[in-house]
C-alpha cells in the first residue's frame, strides 16, 4: 500500500466516493458490516456530542471547545483500530478516539469547564491527556514507543497532530527519533487545511504532508481522511507494519474542519462559502451513511432515533459534569509533585488563613 501510494506522486488513497460508492474495491478493507455500522454509530455519537458541546459553550456553560465537526472519520477509524494494549497520544481534536480509549464525555466537559479533574481521564488506560503545546506530544509517543521495544511488547502508539503542527521543530525531532529508533509509532496528521486562520499552503511548500516521511526514511501515505474505509485500511496496515517491528509510519489524513477553530474563532474571516460548500460534499458521516443505506444496513429513521438517544446521553453526562463538586484549594497543590515540598504545604495553609479571615469579614 505504501509503495503504491508513494506520496511523492501526490496520489491519495480513497475507497468510497462522496456518494458512498466503492470506487476502489481492491483496496477496501475486510470489515464486517456490523463493525462498519458500529463505527458509524460511534461517529454519529461523537458528532452529536461535538455539536452539543459547541452549544453548551455558547450558553456560557463551558469555557472553550475545539470542534471536530467534519473530521470524524479520522477518529472514527482509529477508534476501531486501536486495541486495548495500544497507546493513544492525542492533540486536542480527536473526540472519537479519546472516547474509544475510555475517556468519558463527562471528563471532557469537566476539562472544558476548567476543572482539572477532567484532564486526568482517570478510567482510561494508555491514553495521554490532551496536549495543547502544538506537536510537543509527538515526542512522548516516541518515548513510549522506545519503552515498548525495550520491554519487547507488541503495543503500538498512535499519535495525532494537525497540519499546522508539522511546522514545529518537535514534529521533525519526533519523526526523526522514531525512525532512527525504529519504534512502533503511527503519526497521524489531521490535515484539516487550517491552523486557526492559516491555510496549509502558507504552512509548507511541500507537495503534501505525507511526503515529509521521506526525510526520515519511513513510509508515508496520503489518505482521504473523510473516507472511513480508507482511513481504516491505512491505519490497519500501519498498525501491522509497526507491530511487526518495521518502525514508524506517517499518515496524512486529508480532511476539513467544518466548524470554527475553537468557539472563539470566526472562520468567515479567512475562508469562502464556495470552499465550505465544496468540502460539505465530502462529509465523512454523509458518505458512510450513504454507503450503509445503499447496503440497507441503516436508515434515516434509525439515525434520527439514535441521535435523540445520544442527545440524552450527552446531556446526562453534561449534567453530571455540571453537578460535580466544586474544586477545593487542595486540588491546586495536591498533584504538583509526587513528593510535595514543605513550602507548598505552607502556601496552602497560609491561604486557608486568608479564607478564614475572609469568612470572618462577612
Amino acid at each position, binding site marked *: 500500500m505504501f509503495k503504491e501510494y508513494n506520496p511523492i506522486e501526490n496520489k491519495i488513497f480513497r475507497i468510497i466516493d462522496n456518494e458512498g460508492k466503492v470506487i476502489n474495491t481492491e483496496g477496501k478493507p475486510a470489515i464486517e458490516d456490523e463493525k462498519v455500522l458500529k463505527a458509524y454509530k460511534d461517529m454519529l455519537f461523537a458528532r452529536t456530542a461535538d455539536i452539543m458541546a459547541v452549544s453548551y459553550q455558547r450558553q456560557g456553560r463551558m*469555557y*472553550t471547545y475545539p470542534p471536530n465537526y467534519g473530521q470524524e472519520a479520522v477518529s472514527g477509524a482509529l477508534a476501531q483500530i486501536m486495541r486495548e494494549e495500544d497507546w493513544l497520544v492525542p492533540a486536542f481534536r480527536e473526540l472519537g478516539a479519546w472516547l474509544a480509549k475510555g475517556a468519558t464525555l463527562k471528563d471532557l466537559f469537566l*476539562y*472544558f*469547564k*476548567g*476543572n*482539572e479533574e477532567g*484532564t486526568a481521564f482517570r478510567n482510561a488506560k494508555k491514553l495521554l491527556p490532551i496536549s*495543547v*503545546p*502544538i506537536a510537543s506530544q509527538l515526542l512522548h509517543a516516541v518515548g513510549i514507543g522506545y519503552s515498548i521495544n525495550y520491554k519487547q511488547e507488541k503495543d503500538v502508539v498512535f499519535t495525532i497532530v494537525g497540519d*499546522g*503542527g508539522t*511546522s*514545529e*521543530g*518537535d514534529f521533525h525531532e519526533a519523526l526523526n527519533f522514531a525512525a532512527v529508533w525504529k519504534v512502533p509509532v503511527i503519526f497521524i496528521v489531521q490535515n484539516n487545511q487550517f*491552523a*486557526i*486562520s*492559516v491555510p496549509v499552503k*502558507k*504552512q*509548507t511548500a511541500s507537495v503534501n504532508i505525507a511526503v515529509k516521511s521521506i526525510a526520515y526514511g519511513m513510509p508515508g501515505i496520503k489518505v482521504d481522511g473523510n473516507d472511513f474505509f480508507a482511513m481504516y485500511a491505512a491505519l490497519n496496515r500501519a498498525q501491522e507494519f509497526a507491530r511487526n517491528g518495521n518502525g514508524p509510519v506517517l499518515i496524512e489524513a486529508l480532511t476539513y474542519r467544518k466548524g470554527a477553530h475553537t468557539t*472563539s474563532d470566526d472562520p468567515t*474571516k*479567512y475562508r469562502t462559502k464556495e470552499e465550505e460548500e465544496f468540502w460539505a460534499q465530502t462529509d465523512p458521516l454523509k458518505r458512510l451513511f450513504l454507503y450503509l443505506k445503499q447496503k440497507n444496513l441503516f436508515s434515516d429513521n434509525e439515525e434520527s432515533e439514535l441521535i435523540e438517544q445520544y442527545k440524552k446521553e450527552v446531556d446526562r453526562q453534561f449534567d453530571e459534569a455540571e453537578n460535580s463538586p*466544586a*474544586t477545593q*484549594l487542595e*486540588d*491546586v*497543590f495536591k498533584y*504538583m509533585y509526587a513528593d510535595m*515540598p514543605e*513550602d*507548598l504545604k505552607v*502556601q*496552602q495553609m497560609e*491561604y486557608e488563613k*486568608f479564607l478564614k*479571615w*475572609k469568612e470572618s469579614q462577612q
Partner: protein
Amino acid sequence: MVQAVNNALEIKLADDENVVIYGEDAGVEGGVFRVTEGLQQKFGEKRVFDSPLAESAIVGTAVGMAIAGLRPVVELQFCGFVYPAFNQIISHAARIHNRTRGKYKTPMVIRFPYGGGINALEHHSESMESIYGHIPGIKVVIPSTPYDAKGLLISAIESDDTVIFMEPKRIYRAIKQEVAEEKYSIPIGKAKVVSAGTDITIVAYGAMIREVQKAMVMAKSKNISVELIDLRTIYPLDKETIVKSVQKTGRLMIVTEEPNTFGVAAEITAIANEEAFLYLEAPVKRVTGFDVIVPLPASEHFYMQTPEKIFYELERVMKF
C-alpha cells in the same frame, strides 16, 4: 489596550519602512486577540503577515531580519507558547550585539499576551516575566494601561535592543481609557508612581495594578495611605523609584501573578534590603502566585490575587 497596541504598531509601520510584523495568525486574521487587526489591509502582505506555526523560527528569523536592518515586531500567541523560542531568545536575540561587539544589533520586539484571570485553559494563563528578566541582554516591558501600552511599545520598537513586550491580556479590553492619536513614547526602564502615599509602598505591574487600586479603596477606609508604583519595566528595574519610596514609607509589598519562588518579588525584596535596609519597619511582603501551575478556571480564583487578598496582606504588613 488592544486598540492602543494596534495604534502603536500602525504608527510605527507608517513611520519606518523597516518595521515588519508577523506571527501565527497575525496577518489575515489580525491575531488571536485581534491586536494586529486591519494592519495587513493597510500595509500589505510584505509588512504584516502570517507565519507558519513555529515559535523558534518566528524569533530566529526576526534575529536575522534585525541583523539585516529590519525592525521586526513578532507576535507569539501566549506566554505559554514562547518556550519553543527560548533558545533563540537567550542564545541569540539577547547576545548578537555582545557577540559582535556592537557590529550587529537586534532591534526587535517579541510581543505576547500573558497572565491569568480570563478563564483560559492550561498553558494560557501563565506569567513568566522573571525568567525573561533574568536573561542578560534583553529588556522586558509590561504595560498596565492603554496609554502606557502605546508609549512603551513605541519605545520598544525604536529601541536598538531586543525587547520582550508582555501584554496583560486580562485587561486587553477591560480598561477603557482615551489614548491620544499622535505618537508619543514612554521611556523603558522607568517606573511610575501611580499614586503617592505615606504608610506603605506597593510595587506591581500589568493587570495587578488594577487589583491593587481596588484594594487601596479598602485601605483608604482604614486610613492606610498607600504609595503605588507601577514597575512598567521588569528589566532594567528602576531601583531608584522603588528605593526612594520605601525610604519614605518604611514598608513594602509586591504584588505579582508569578509563582513565588525566584520571582520578580524576590528581586524587589532584595533591592529594598540592599538599598533601604535601615528604613524598613516591617518585612517586605511578597503577594504572589503559589509555586504551582496556574490552575484551570474552576480553581483559578484560589491562585489569582484579588483586591480582598491584597488588602488582607496589606493589613498584616501594617500591623507588624
